[in-house]
């Protein structure tokens, strides 16, 4: 029986059953949701949940393995970003893709500039159109002929938005747009977003910041481990429910915290400064203690770790290891002091992908594995075999090329490489990002074991539940400074989240 006499117009964007796999990794497994014209639709999920893969598919950078994309109810087949642009989809990535040597107008129209005869650019037309675009977004303080390289980050982002609009975008995707903005710029961005919404542009807004989602968005979709969890009306949900959807279990079950005896301080940092990202940080980590370092993307946690580890040495401030003052100018020095750092980006910073599992395992311990400079191959092999066994690394052989392993196993190798040195301080930077739940649990178990053996652990993580579940103490960084400390008992998601976001940080805001 025909139910509706009047059918509602199809949504601006609808994705159905999207699936995408890369070698060794299933990035999306059946994601469906829709965005209406004039809707601000937030996309939420932990790092590695599949958000960036999803938007790359919708913007035509990747093609999906299965599933459909529909614009206005019509199925689309995007083979390139050009196709998506022509269909009215525009994306603003976190890494702004601008040409710093060219002007605002040139950047806006790069690739589709108005032309005259014989390919000559129509300068005047381009400038006029740029001015009209600026006007339409009520931007009065940006000139079309300014060189982009001289603009602030906030202004550059506006140039990107204008570029999207120059293609008559009807669906605008914004990936963590406020990650690098100052407060006034955020206010201006919100104004523009609301203007666009009023004009009927659909917006997919990806952000970690729950307060922004509650201020700006109409609906929010949550992804977890590449799967679709659910969509909620922002007005009818709350942060707790969203966090639960992101994580999947209650905190207690996921991160069994094992008690470890806590000893003397291994790391003490006082007023560490390295401009522009680290602005006077002091903290300490004791033997057997797991200190969690929470903060938003861009709060300077990795930079702090890299300053301690000597990759980008500190400009001023004091570091003491086991009570001894030290000056750390290189990672080699840090390693010799018993510090280990498992970096954030395992592909480019942690692992040498073309090398074998065996060679990656020994990379940080070559000094101790060699005599007069000659590598003791037998000892190297024993080290790798032990590491593979202890960390349960799944590999066909030690000669297997490391880059072919799954994310979780790669991460274990990076960890194992450092454990080979028996460090007394272990700094973990997003150790479980982008790996499957099983490997995650194993890494947490290993962390617990290490703590019980007396290793001091500094855990940097953007997954609040992980930080809250694993840490004895939680420190919060914001904009390069250390702003709050919570003992395990006091560390609740609301309190920590509020400290991360700053201000009174009401997570419950009326939707605009």
């Amino acid at each position: 029986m025909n139910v509706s006499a009047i059918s509602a117009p199809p949504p601006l964007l609808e994705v159905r059953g999207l699936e995408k796999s890369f070698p060794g990794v299933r990035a999306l497994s059946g994601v469906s949701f829709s965005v209406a014209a004039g809707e601000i639709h937030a996309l939420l999920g932990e790092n590695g949940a599949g958000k960036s893969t999803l938007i790359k598919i919708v913007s035509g950078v990747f093609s999906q393995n299965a599933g459909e994309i529909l614009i206005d109810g019509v199925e689309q087949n995007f083979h390139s970003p050009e196709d998506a642009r022509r269909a009215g989809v525009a994306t603003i990535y976190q890494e702004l893709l601008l040409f710093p040597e060219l002007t605002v107008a040139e950047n806006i129209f790069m690739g589709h500039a108005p032309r005259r005869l014989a390919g000559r650019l129509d300068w005047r037309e381009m400038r006029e159109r740029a001015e009209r675009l600026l006007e339409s977004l009520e931007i009065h303080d940006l000139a079309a002929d300014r060189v982009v390289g001289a603009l602030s980050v906030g202004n550059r982002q506006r140039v990107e938005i204008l570029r999207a609009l120059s293609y008559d975008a009807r669906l605008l995707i914004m990936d963590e747009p406020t990650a690098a903005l100052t407060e006034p710029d955020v206010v201006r961005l919100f104004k523009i977003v609301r203007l666009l919404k009023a004009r009927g542009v659909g917006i997919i807004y990806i952000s970690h910041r729950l307060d922004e989602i509650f201020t700006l968005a109409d609906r929010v979709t949550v992804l977890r481990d590449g799967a679709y969890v659910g969509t909620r009306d922002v007005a009818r949900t709350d942060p707790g429910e969203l966090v639960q959807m992101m994580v999947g279990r209650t905190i207690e079950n996921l991160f069994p915290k094992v008690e470890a005896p806590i000893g003397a301080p291994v790391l003490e940092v006082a007023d560490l400064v390295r401009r522009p990202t680290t602005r006077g940080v002091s903290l300490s980590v004791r033997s057997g203690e797991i200190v969690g370092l929470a903060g938003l993307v861009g709060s300077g946690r990795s930079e702090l770790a890299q300053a301690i580890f000597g990759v980008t040495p500190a400009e001023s401030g004091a570091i003491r290891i086991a009570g001894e003052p030290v000056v750390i100018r290189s990672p080699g020095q840090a390693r010799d002091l018993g510090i280990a750092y498992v970096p954030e980006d395992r592909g480019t910073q942690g692992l040498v992908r073309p090398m074998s599992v065996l060679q990656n395992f020994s990379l940080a311990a070559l000094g101790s594995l060699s005599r007069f400079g000659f590598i003791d191959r037998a000892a190297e092999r024993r080290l790798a075999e032990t590491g593979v066994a202890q960390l349960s690394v799944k590999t066909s052989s030690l000669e297997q090329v490391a880059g072919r392993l799954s994310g979780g196993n790669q991460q274990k190798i990076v960890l194992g490489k450092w454990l080979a040195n028996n460090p007394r301080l272990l700094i973990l930077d997003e150790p479980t990002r982008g790996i499957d739940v099983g490997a995650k649990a194993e890494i947490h178990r290993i962390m617990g074991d290490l703590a019980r053996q007396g290793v001091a652990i500094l855990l940097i993580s953007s997954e609040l539940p992980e930080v809250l579940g694993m840490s004895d103490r939680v420190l919060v960084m914001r904009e390069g400074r250390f702003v709050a400390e919570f003992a395990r008992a006091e560390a609740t998601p609301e309190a920590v989240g509020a400290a991360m976001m700053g201000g009174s940080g009401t997570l419950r805001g009326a939707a605009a």
Partner: protein
Amino acid sequence: MTSLAAAPPERRVPRWLARHETLLAAVLIVALAILGALNNRFLTLDNLLNQGRLMTEVGLIALPMTFVIITGGIDLSVGSVVGLCAIALGYSWKNLGFPLPAAIAFAIALGAICGFINGFFITRVKVPPLIMTIATLALYRGFAEGISQAHSVRGYPEWFYFMGQGELFGVPTQLWLLVAAIVIAGVALDRTTFGRSLYAIGANETAARFSGLPVDRIKLVVYTLSGLMAGVSAYVLVSRVTTTRSDMGIGYELDVIAAVVLGGTSIFGGSGTIWGTVVGLVMIQLLKDGLALTGVKGDATIVVIGTVLIASTLLASSLQKRRDVGG
């Protein structure tokens, strides 16, 4: 994200057989046979030893060049360093009155300094190796020409020619030097932490740094070695041709890089062996010799070398792509 188990398909061909170096060695043997058949003077011991003598100058430089290219860099200034060191040798002896052994040591040390300067700017100032060594290619050659004013130096004492023209137990002197250098370089690359670090730096410099490897120091060392060997090569060269001229070493960079790339070292860094470089070196020398014996003049051989360079890079690149995609 759920992960798939990573289990590569079983290899049907043993890995060592499909390696670039083995294939090249096979081609080498075939080439030897063909050239030997075409010209009966070719496969005589005399001729082969002489070829060994001739290839030492390029060979000595090709060894540290292998290191440099493995780390993902390049050194185009080696030919100019040879020229400058040759001039330094001649002029410090003839015009400055150094005792000849001191002049030799000075020339070699100068080579190391030239290499060190390259390495310094590349690691501390972060000048890209390509443009840095193009600049020093000009600068060092310029100094050679400026100091010598295109005059040559002659008249070295008899003992001086032993390195370049003499024999030890029936084998040309410099060949012993080359063989020793090959062994040392090969062992260093394959079995020491230094060698392992080179591969890591070339494959992923950032990860190497994050793993505590002293990346800048190692790069400085390889560029210094490159200059040092160019200095030694200059000594061998002058000793062989009995004069010092400012145009010595011109074009060496082509032969050296061709030998390294032909031998299987990827121009992009991260892989390569000394053994491969040696095979590449021998092949190029034989190519030149074979061409000469069939009447092709010296200048034309660089046409062939240039073609070989491009072709072997092409081949290596497509083999690499297949290796990445397949099992």
